[in-house]
């Protein structure tokens, strides 16, 4: 496992708690979360269903304001959504009344970039997700995996400081999912993106993350953070099988045990 | 002196009116063979209005109910309606006045009963259903017929329009109806009359089709109201001199046979201006004629029925039934 030291801090979550609803019907979703996300990291979050993973992401994205504590981005408190923090949802929220091109151009257009630049960005990222030929298609003409690739390209086109992903491959079948994992790993490496990635699949987390955060059941707390390196190994060696070694199963079993003990 | 002052005032108004004539006059009319229909057909209004650059618009109404709504909303200036509707107009403070009586209703409105129904006299109607268009002159007369017979609480009245009365009659849903021509004729093909409005008129229950004008209009353009009356009077003369011809004109205008039109016209009484100015009808401003009394009686009756909440006073009716325009019309004709 590689040491991650002296990285530049991007996002800092301090003593954050989140409660839904009022007094009687309230749910404590998150309790006392402390987490730092550094530039260039690939963080995966694991935890039993309903533990508050999505809630955590929403706090970072600025969709929900924490009940106590705070989320800082480069020292400034997060206050509502912002194009510096791109979000990829579980089911892609592509706009069906726009073509693939228009979807990808949406962010840059909103920021009033010059036309030529918008076109360049769009072409670059459509190429990045291997969809160059599909610009004029409408999104409903694409398969699930292609849709999720457009959603990723759309977020990347804004050059966000961090990409937040909430189980982005959860709805894809096993084979498409594997392709997408390779794609996102490559994009992460090549563009030196910072990624915060939620999954309920331990394998997926281990194959992608360089830090894996495991959360407790509701109210969600961070139980343990694993620094792992399998993703770099895969990237270097170009194949997945190599990493199915003892190290891998050791970490995996530990995570599984933690989660199982949570479900009981 | 009083009259003189009025005349002077009239002249001042006259000149003012000459200067600014209205762009258009809106008439609400009924599709019945009366003086107004003949006047329209013969173009009697042309010389008074059209040739002076005033556009004449006519709106056909099925009943005085609609005419009242149109008056209230300011959509029309003149309206023809039954005198019961004219009472509603006064009671509802529509700010109109009654300037003309087109015809006094007689045999053209009657209580018809079906052949074979076994009804011989009004009293036999006990327990029966009688159809009548509510709020109409027929409604008023029928209520009085029943009252005279003392059976007003022992029959069921149905609120129906004339077409529906025919349909219900033919289907056998009803065996008695109080209605007017031409519907009445259709009913009488398989029925007979028990009593009619002329019989009731003899007992003092007079009904008539009248003309009401918005006061805003009549006060500003009294000459035009008088001209309107002159045109009607001219049309009435045709009927009085040559009923056949009048029926032909009205029949053509309404798309009905001359015979039918004549029959309908004969069921009513048309009065000349002079007759209308007599004590039997309008009277004078100082000595109101008996029509104002008839209106008051009718109004009181309608109030007892609950159709209107308050019956206007006799004084209000005296003012409402205004003979002035007929007078001006007569004077104008004498001058010419």
């Amino acid at each position, binding site marked *: 496992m590689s040491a991650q030291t002296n990285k530049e801090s991007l996002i800092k979550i301090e003593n954050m708690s*989140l*409660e*839904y*609803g*009022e007094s009687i019907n309230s749910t404590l979703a998150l309790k006392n979360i402390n987490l730092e996300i550094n530039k260039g990291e690939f963080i995966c979050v694991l935890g039993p269903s309903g533990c508050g993973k*999505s*809630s955590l992401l*929403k706090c970072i994205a600025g*969709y*929900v*304001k924490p*009940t106590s504590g705070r989320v800082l981005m480069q020292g400034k408190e997060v*206050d*509502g959504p912002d194009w510096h923090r791109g979000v990829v*949802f*579980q089911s892609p929220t592509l706009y069906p009344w726009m073509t693939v091109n228009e979807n990808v151009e949406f962010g840059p257009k909103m920021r009033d970039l010059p036309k030529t630049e918008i076109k360049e960005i769009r072409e670059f990222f459509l190429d990045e997700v291997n969809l160059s030929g599909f610009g004029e298609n409408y999104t409903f003409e694409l398969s699930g995996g292609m849709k999720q690739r457009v959603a990723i390209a759309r977020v990347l086109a804004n050059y966000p400081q961090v990409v937040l992903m*909430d189980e982005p491959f959860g709805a894809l079948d096993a084979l498409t999912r594997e392709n997408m994992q390779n794609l996102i790993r490559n994009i992460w490496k090549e563009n030196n993106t910072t990624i915060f990635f939620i999954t309920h699949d331990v394998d997926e987390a281990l194959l992608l993350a360089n830090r894996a955060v495991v959360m407790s059941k509701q109210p969600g707390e961070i139980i343990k953070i694993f620094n792992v390196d399998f993703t770099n190994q895969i990237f270097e060696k170009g194949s997945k099988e190599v990493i199915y070694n003892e190290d891998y199963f050791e970490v995996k079993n530990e995570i599984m045990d933690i989660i199982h003990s949570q479900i009981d | 002196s009083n009259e003189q002052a009025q005349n002077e005032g009239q002249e001042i108004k006259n000149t003012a009116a000459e200067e600014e004539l209205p762009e258009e006059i809106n008439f609400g009319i009924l599709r019945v063979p009366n003086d107004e229909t003949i006047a329209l057909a013969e173009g009697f209004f042309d010389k008074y209005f059209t040739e002076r650059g005033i556009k004449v618009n006519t709106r056909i109404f099925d009943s005085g*109910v609609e005419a*009242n*709504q149109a008056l*209230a*909303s300011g959509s029309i200036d003149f309206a023809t309606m039954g005198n019961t509707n004219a009472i*509603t107009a006064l009671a*509802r*403070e*529509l*700010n109109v006045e009654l300037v003309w009586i087109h015809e006094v209703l007689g045999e053209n409105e009657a209580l018809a009963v079906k052949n074979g129904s076994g009804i011989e006299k009004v009293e036999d109607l006990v327990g029966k259903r009688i*159809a009548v268009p*509510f*709020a109409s002159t027929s409604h008023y007369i029928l209520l009085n017929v029943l009252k005279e017979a003392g059976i007003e609480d022992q029959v*069921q*009245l*149905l*609120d*129906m*329009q004339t*077409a*529906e009365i025919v*349909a*219900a009659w033919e*289907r056998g*849903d*009803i065996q008695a109806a109080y209605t007017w021509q031409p519907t009445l004729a259709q009913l009488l093909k398989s029925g007979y009359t028990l009593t009619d409005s002329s019989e009731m008129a003899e007992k003092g229950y007079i009904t008539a089709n009248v003309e009401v004008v918005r006061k805003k209009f009549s006060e500003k353009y009294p000459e035009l109201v008088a001209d309107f009356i002159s045109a009607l009077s001219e049309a009435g003369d045709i009927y009085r001199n040559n009923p056949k011809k009048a029926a032909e004109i009205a029949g053509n205008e309404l798309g009905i046979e001359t015979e039918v039109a004549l029959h309908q016209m004969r069921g009513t009484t048309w009065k000349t201006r002079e007759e209308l100015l007599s004590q039997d009808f309008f009277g004078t401003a100082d000595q109101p004629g008996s029509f104002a009394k008839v209106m008051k009686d009718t109004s009181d009756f309608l109030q007892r029925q*609950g*159709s*209107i*909440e308050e019956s206007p006073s006799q004084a209000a009716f005296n003012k409402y039934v205004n003979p002035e325009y007929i007078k001006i019309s007569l004077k104008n004709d004498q001058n010419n």
Partner: protein
Amino acid sequence: MALNKKKNNKQKEKPAANHPKVNRESEKNKKTKTEKALTFITWASIFLTWYIITKLGIFTPTLLPGPARVWMAFLRILENGYNGVPLWLHLGASFKRLFVALFFAIFTAVPLGLLSGYFDKVEAVIDSVVEFYRPLPPLAYYTLLVLWFGIDDTSKQILLFLAGFAPIYIACVSAVRKLNQDFVLSARSLGAAQKDVFFKIVLPASLPEIFTGIRTAFGVAYTTLVSSEMVAATSGIGWMVLDASNFLKSDVIFVGIIIMGITGVIIDAGLRFLERKIIFWKGHV
């Protein structure tokens, strides 16, 4: 829900992607105090404007009767009835017509609609007829109904029946079409015969849409009520308004409209209540 809420209570309004339905419903029931106040203020200012305008005497009472006048008319009708008939008898006459019509509409439209959805051949026979008469204005054919069925309640009820039939029929057809086919297939794989599938699966699964159809039907029939009382009625809340129109009794028209508005809202609330009780699983299909 509003998207412009102040930042500091955002979590209450933003639905979790996972639980949108639940959230929205619970939020919907929980109108905030501000909103209740706003609704109150709206109606209060409507009444105030009304009061002031009539007080200023800009319009005659015939054009616009004041609140006091309308209230007096209401009390008068409550006490003496209208045209000698007590108010509750007017309401009773109207609702009898309405409910008889809807009763027959439900008991013919539900089976026909479900069968039409179930069997294409039944649909081929019925559907185009319904589609043809549905958009027709009731007043256009009411005269024919009067000619054929007389002036009594029959023709009125048939008019209301026709108004109510189409929405229920259409809702039933669409319910069967939208039916999760796996419900039917799983039932058959569990040994259910055609009859069982129809009564135990298709019918209950269609109930939510049937209920929506009934609510729409009630609304449409209610809207047709006044038309139906145009001919040969001497009772009924619709006839009362029409008769008041004859004599330009604007205050009575207002009373009638307010009574109809309130009873309409009450009946719809009743139907919603019934729906919640009977179709407790709604939203879980």
